């Protein structure tokens, strides 16, 4: 089994917030972490490898410091790491990102399974996985909550829906995006950590993957951000007074329109 997992480095949500006074984004010491869903994707890949044999390659498009999350994935059991990094990728939306990742996958070579997180927590778009599958012309399943059965030829899966779940079967090659219910990611082993320190990360530039400059970065992105602004502030919190019973009474009065 050859498995490729796409992982993204994202700013940690708890550090990204608006400064209520200046209405600008306070970013004091914004930490970067591996996108939480991608940790589950890495874990699932490693489990499948342990079950069926083979190897796991983690792939990220991002700035040089994204190396950190690739090493983290190695420490959790991935075998190889590839970083596609180039200033020309800056400003990529999901369309340009899926193009770039597809080009990189072609350079990595044959694979059976591609795994992505359901979405990246910075943009929350959930579009890169399906986009990548379309470009590689392979079937995909999003929001996989369970792998019921895995063999050398294919998988039986549960896909989370709004009203329950669907049970699906497919053959390789295919792409899945996973939700956090699928597994509990392991903590890195000591051996894994050692390997992560030493592992050589393969670096690819836009030229290395043969990317068309018109399809990457800002020029390759059909969507463009024209404005960024703070969300409307919530109204001031009402404070109730009196005994607890009185307070509950006041609450019910305030909620009248919903009752």
């Amino acid at each position, binding site marked *: 089994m050859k498995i490729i997992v796409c992982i993204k480095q994202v*700013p940690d*949500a*708890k550090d*990204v*917030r608006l400064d209520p006074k*200046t209405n*600008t*984004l306070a*970013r004091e010491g*914004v930490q970067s972490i591996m996108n*939480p869903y991608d940790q589950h994707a890495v874990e699932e890949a490693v489990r499948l490898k342990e079950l069926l044999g083979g190897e796991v390659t983690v792939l990220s498009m991002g700035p*040089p410091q994204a190396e950190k999350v690739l090493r983290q994935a190695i420490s959790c059991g991935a075998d190889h790491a590839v970083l596609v*990094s180039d*200033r020309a990728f*800056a*400003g990529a939306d999901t*369309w340009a990102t899926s193009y770039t990742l597809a080009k990189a996958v072609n350079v990595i070579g044959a694979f059976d399974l591609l795994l992505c997180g359901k979405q990246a*927590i*910075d*943009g*929350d778009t*959930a*579009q890169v996985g*399906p*986009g990548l599958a*379309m470009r590689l012309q392979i*079937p995909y*399943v*999003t929001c996989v909550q369970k792998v019921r059965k895995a063999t050398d030829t294919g998988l039986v899966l549960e896909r989370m829906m*709004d*009203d*329950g779940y*669907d*049970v*699906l*079967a*497919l053959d390789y090659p295919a792409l899945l995006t996973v*939700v*956090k219910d699928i597994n509990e990611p392991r903590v890195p082993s000591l051996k894994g950590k050692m390997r992560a320190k030493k592992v050589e990360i393969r670096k690819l530039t836009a030229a290395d993957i043969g990317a068309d400059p018109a399809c990457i970065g*800002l020029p390759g992105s*059909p*969507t*463009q*951000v*024209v*404005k*960024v602004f*703070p*969300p409307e502030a*919530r*109204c001031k*919190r*009402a404070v109730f007074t009196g005994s607890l*019973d009185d*307070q*509950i009474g006041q*609450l019910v009065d305030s*909620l009248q329109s*919903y*009752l």
Partner: protein
Amino acid sequence: MLIIDKELCIGCGICESACPFGAIAVADGCAVVGDGCTLCGTCVETCDPGALKIEEAEKSAPLDLASWSGVWVYGEFRRGALAPVSLELLGIGRRLADTRKVPLSAVLIGSETGDTARQLIAHGADTVYRIDDPALAHFTDEAYGAIMTSLIQKNKPEIVLAGATAIGRSFIPGVATSLGAGLTADCTQLAIREEDGALLQTRPAFGGNIMATIVCPNSRPQMSTVRPKVMQALVFDAERQGNIVDVKPTPEQLATRVRVIESVVSEEDNVNIQESDILVAGGRGLDNAKGFTLMRELAASLGGAVAATRAVVDAGWIGYPHQVGQTGKTVAPKLYIACGISGAVQHVAGMQSAETIVAINRDKDAPIFDVADFGLVGDLFEIVPKLLTKIEEHRKS
């Protein structure tokens, strides 16, 4: 590329503190851009001297934008019913279409759709493209995607909207990729830009901490998925006239490589928390799984559904479909009652766009009170039963 005009830069550092990615820094009295830059443009807006500029690279010749016309809505049909968000989409779709002076169409894909096409018309559609085939009884990304893609290629609508549901967020990204179209996920506001008729798509990013407005200047159609519960449906008008166009799918479109073995409606998860007007949410303050009995009682009394934090989902007290937050669902109900929830950023990210938030927590310093409109400090096991009684009393009086 982000270009910094060294002549104009005064080294004030405002851009440095504004950058969400920490990608710009002042060195030797002048801003310097680093590798983390995503060209989001936040810094450009904050720069008073106008020293920052995003240079758009040469575009390949834009396609013939004017030949794309009309607004389309995907009418999501599953298990014999239309998803409520589809009617909300028709509401906003009608407004956009009227502003653009173009027709509004709906696409209905499924099996045994009955009079659903009529319903779509009564809710605002001028035309309904109906693809009704037994092979489409179960949703599959490939078949639904292939049909949608080919209809769009043939009819060339300028705008395509779909619900940001499990289904919409799964197959629409595939359609957009095939079409080479821009797609904006999870929009909460849509409007037409006056100068050029472009669709202004506004959505929350970074867990709702910032809002971003996005346009697709050089590609068509302009595609968005839209969050349930933020747009207003039009009133049902049985008199409204429209056409129904039946389209037959080709065998190639129906061939899919993913086989549906079964489709399970889970008893407990049957209520989609994203579609509920009222949510009663429980956290670790409930002590154990039994605590959710109280939450269900309150939800039942209010006609709402039950939501939860990650902590209690991980503890197995309730299923993952109920989880609200960064790694769960994003909800925007009218009323959100948070019981025994501390209000961690990852949770708040998923619920801060609720219209009214009530927090019940015994710790007066819990961060949930920072986003709450109404807060009660105290023991939830004392407060919630009393609240239930008061609601009953209120109803009777």
